[in-house]
Each structure stands twice: as C-alpha cells, then as structure tokens.
C-alpha cells in the first residue's frame, strides 16, 4: 500500500514535470527563437497562407512542376506511404503506369531515364522535394503550356539551378529541389 502511494505521487510528479512543464518550456523557447518554424514554416502569397514549405502539394496542371507520387494524395490527415512490398504486383503495375504517364505528360521519348522518385511513392506521402533531374525533364512541357519564349525557358532552368539544395553541410542527405517553392518562382516569371 505504501508502495502504491509512492508510485502515485512520483507519477504525478513526473506527469507535471515531463508532461506539462517540459512541453510548455520547449514551446516557450521555440516560439521566441524560431517562431516561423515552430508554427509550421507557412508560406504566404498575397497575404493568404498557401501552404507550408515543408509539406508537399499535389500538382497535376501542365503549368506546374509535378511532385512525387503520394499514397495519400498529399492529404496530411493522416500521412503515410503505400506500404507495398517490392514483390507486390500492384506496385509493379503502378510503377509501369507512372512511367508511361510521366513520359506522355512531358512529351519525352521512351529512351529517357526517369528519376526513380517520380515512379515510387514517398514514405510520408508529403515529400516536398524531387531531384533537379526530375525538374529539368519537365521544363519543356511547362514552357509550352505557358507560352514561354526561349529566354524565359532559360530563366526556368536557371531557377532550378538556384533553388537546388546541395547536401546539407557538404555531406548530409541528397541533392533536391522543393517543388512548391519552385512553382511559386515560376508564377513570378509571368
């Protein structure tokens, strides 16, 4: 009985300390030092929030760069991947379908090597990035849809180069480009 009372009291102590004080303390510090990041790295356009820099969005219009395939169609409630095993015929069919679709949509010939992230769905279903190679393959199609002249097209290529993020601190992670930020820049070209 005495043990139970101690257990209850010490549980109460830890609940207050690690369940209330700790998250509140971290929230307090975070909101002061990194307010934008603590609140979701939201992006505004014309004073309206149009999304988060970190959360990918679905793009299927011809005038935008497309994001990766997503098992949850970029709906974050809830996030997740396809969880298909590599020997699952459903996955194999999806990959073939996506390959053909990407080629047809971007007017590429059948010898083009499509970066694999455009054929496979991400883990979170919210991956905001694609590889710069995947972006370059889409330039021609976007330029056509937006009636860009050659100079504007070069500007798009230039945007891809400037927005490409190198591996962090020289060696961490992969080279990538944020699709939402790229499309926002694209809109600014007009």
């Amino acid at each position: 009985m005495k043990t139970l009372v101690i257990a209850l009291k010490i549980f109460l102590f830890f609940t207050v300390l690690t369940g209330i004080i700790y998250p509140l303390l971290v929230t307090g510090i975070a909101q002061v030092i990194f307010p934008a990041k603590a609140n979701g790295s939201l992006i505004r356009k014309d004073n309206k929030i149009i999304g988060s820099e970190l959360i990918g969005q679905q793009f299927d219009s011809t005038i935008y760069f497309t994001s990766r395939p997503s098992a949850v169609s970029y709906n974050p409630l809830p996030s997740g991947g396809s969880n298909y095993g590599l020997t699952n015929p459903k996955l194999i069919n999806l990959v073939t379908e996506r390959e053909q679709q990407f080629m047809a949509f971007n007017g590429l010939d059948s010898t083009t090597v499509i970066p694999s992230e455009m054929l496979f769905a991400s883990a979170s279903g919210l991956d905001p990035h694609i590889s710069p190679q995947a972006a370059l393959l889409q330039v021609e199609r976007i330029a056509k849809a937006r009636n860009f002249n050659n100079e504007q097209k070069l500007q798009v290529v230039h945007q891809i180069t400037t927005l490409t993020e190198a591996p962090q601190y020289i060696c961490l992670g992969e080279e990538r480009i944020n699709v939402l930020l790229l499309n926002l820049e694209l809109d600014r070209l007009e």
Partner: protein
Amino acid sequence: MTVQDVMQVILFFALLIGLTPILGKYMGNVFTGEKHFMQPVFGWSERWAYRFTGVNPEEETNWKAYTFGLLMFNLVGFVFVFIIQLVQAYLPLNPAHLPNVTWHSAFNTSVSFVTNTNWQGYAGETTLSYFVQMLGLTVQNFVSAATGIAVLLAVIRGISRKTTDKLGNFWTDLTRSTLYVLLPLSILFAIILVGQGVVQNFKTCETVQTLQGAQQIIPMGPAASQIAIKQLGTNGGGFFNANSSHPFENPTPFSNFLEMLFILLIPAALTYTYGKMVGSTRQGWTIFSVMMILLITGLSISLYAEYSSNPIFGHLPLMEGKETRFGITNSVLWSTSTTAASNGSVNAMHDSLSPLAGMVAVINIMLGEVIFGGVGAGLYGMVIFIILTVFIAGLMVGRTPEYLGKKIEAFEVQMAIIAILAPSFVILIFTAWASVSSAGLSSLNNPGAHGFSEILYAYSSAAGNNGSAFAGLNANTLFYNLTLGFGMLIGRFGVIVPVLAIAGNMARKKVTPLSAGTFRTDNWLFMGLLIAVILIVGGLTFFPALSLGPIVEHLLMGSGITF
C-alpha cells in the same frame, strides 16, 4: 553508393564512438551519486520530489521490493494512459475535437508506451488529442526509458556488490535518470529540432488553399518536445502517422542525422557507464564492440540489398517508401539503427524495403534487442547473453563459470533462459496463430510471403518492445490490439522480472578473486563466443520462420517472380 554516402556513414559512427565515453562518464557520475554539473540546475527538483513523495533516497531495498515498486509504478502509468484515451473528448487540449478512443486501441496504446515499445496501431494526427500526447505519451516516453535504466542499475549493483541483498532504490534511480540524463538532453535536442523546422505549438490544424487551388489541412501540435524524447529514450512513437519520415518530424538531412545519432546515443554510452560501474571500462568496451560488429554487419547486408539490381525493377533505385531528402543510404542506416536499438521510429517505410533489408530489421529485433537495444534494456538483455556464454564456456572447459568474480549457477542460468524464451514464445506462437486465423489474415496489405513477413514483423516488434512495423498491416483491430498488447507485456516484464531476480541473487554472492584459471570476459575470444551464442540462439529459434517470409521472398524476387 557514392563517396558522399560513405562519408555520412563514417561520420555517424565516428560521432557515436566519440560521444560514448563522454556521456557514459557523465551518467556514471549521476548514478553513483557523485558531483556533476547538472546538480545545481535540477538538484532542487530532485530534493523536492523526495520531500513530496516521502521517499528516503538513502534507503535501499532488496530485489523483490525493487521489482514491486517498478511494477506498481508501471501499473499506475498504464491505468492513467488507458483512462485518458477513453475520455479524451471531455478533456482539454483537443482543438480538433477528436472522439474517445476504442477500449482495445486504448489498451494497446497504453501498454505500448508503458513498455517502451511505442507500437502504434493508431494514426497520431487523427486519433489522439494534444492532452493525451503530452500528459500521457510524452510522460511515458521519459519514465519507460528511465525504468529501463533503473533495471540496468540494479543489475550492475548485483554484479559489483558482494554479500548484500540491497539492490538500490528504484525511486531515486528513476528520478535521477529522468532529471539529469533524459530531461536536459531532450530540452536541448527539441530546440535544435525546431530550428530545423519541426513544429512546436498548441494551434489547431491550418486549412489552406494550395497553389493549385485545392484544399490542404496542415497538422500542428507540440511535436518537437515529443520527438526529442522519443529518440533519446528509444521509444519511437511518432507524433504523426508517418513517424520520422513526416517533414514536420524530420524536415532536413541534419535533423535526420541527429535523430539517428540520438537513437543509439544513450544505449551506446551506457556500455561505458556499465564498464565504469563494474570497475573495468574494458568490459564496457568489449560489449560495445560486440554490439558495433553486429550493427555494422546488419547495415552492410541491408545496404548491399538496397543497392543491388533485381529482375523486377532493374537498376532503378528503390525509392518506394523513402523520402527524397534522405535517399537510400540514410533510410537504410536508420532502418538498421532503429531496429538494433529498440527504438522503432522510421524515416522510410520498412514494408517497402527490399526483402533482405527488411529481414535484417526483423532479425535485429528477434535477437532480443541487444545490439545497443533499448535504453537500459539493451544492456541488461546483453548481460543475459553474457551469462549464457560464460555458462557454455564453463561447460566446455569443465569449470564453474564466473562473470566478473561472481559464480554463475543454476538459478542464474534458469532465469536467463526464461528471459530469452519469453519474447521468442510470443513471436513464434502468436505469429502462427495470426497466420491461420481469419482475424489475423484479414489485416494484410501484401500477398504471399511478404504478407507473412508483415505478421512476423508485428509480433517481433511487440515482443522486442521495438514498435516499428511493416506498416501495411492494419493492426488497429480487436485481434491485433489484444494479442500485440499481451505480447508487449510478456516481452517487457517477462524479461525484467527474471533479470532482477538474477541481480538479487548475484548481489548475495561472494566475489571470487581473479586467478590464472579465470575465464576472461574482455578479450577477442570472448567477443567471438558471445557473438556466436547470440547468432546461434537467434538462428535456431527463428530461421524456420524467416525462411517462410523474407528469405523465400528474396529468392523469388531474384528470379523475377511476384505473388
């Protein structure tokens, strides 16, 4: 693999090795009551805790009282987390107005977090209120890890003390590991994570109109504070469903690198603390090396599997269930680390790993979570294997086995066998049951051998208190919530109780002085033996099950056959 991939892996292990003695030494000071620099910062709250609870920090107990205190404390935690889920709709901090959780899901989740498993049958962002995530789950993230450390400390005292029945004071062990180790590291880590983009607020979801004009609901919440401790405490339960692949949990390659490092940091450092407290850091480094060899072996196999071509996808990099910013190397380094440590958070979907990489993940768990393993739990699990190894070596040379001067006798070996068999029993029996019952089979997401792997992985994860999943399996059903829940309980307390019994029995023994005939436990020969015992026990127990799942899948994939 590129040069840059190799650099990341080397940097990762270099930092892990470098930080081990630093943190290990500090923890040694904390646990032996020596002076350390965190005392002025949190000492007041430790004293306050003892005054409030009426605990006398000087008073030590025998192993039975120590175990009883531990079980009572965990029971209180379980009841609390269970109840607040059942009534979360009536509690504050529920801006999304989430409904009450079903009883079997609440049972599963509360067992899961109390046992340091963090198996998640539910999706965080659409199931649990901020109240439950903070006051229920975050608290258990701390105290379940601290419970693991407490058990380890009792084991260390059992080994290093002589002719006493006193194993220490559970309440002070619990308090000190939380206040001086877990809490300060978590605060620091959480703030670094926010700096990388992890959310930390109490706002409700943000509904936005996307650039293309669709509606998207962006989740919010106090995520960073929970993620910091979920990694440090080898818990692994995500704030969001996609766990550490979610950009709000793990936004950048740097946050990814740190989260991976923090999965292994405390379990690795504890090997140094162990060596220091039993009086020979060499003993600690021996254990560290064994763990490291097993980890790197598993990692090499996984990397080989993921970078190999196969007849189905050719040379296409296997990016299914992986994030662009992490790529393949970081996803595999994570999957190996998170299963070796009983963490269970994921930054890539294990269900979509190549069959061999998925097999390494499940073997890491099956071996008893002793490759670094859970905070405290990995090392006391390793002590079980050490006892078994010393015993077998003793049989071979015909001498009474000893470990660090303590005779290993029938009682220790019996308890060690119980601790090894309890989780194995859960894995094999429950997997067999689920594989032949319609309740078990109706939850599968993949056909054929891969579907069997999903079930095998689930029960391994529960019994090993890991918590990661082949997440295609729909585990939020009555059948899985209950069987996995009981599996987690057996896997946790079916090991803790025998381990504490061993500690209590060893503390009573005299110390045999070292002699020329003493079997050394700090050299290459012993490391080789220990690795062999771990692999043979694991191999004999699980090889038949593995050959029905990942092995057959790998062979069929190699010939281009699908299901």
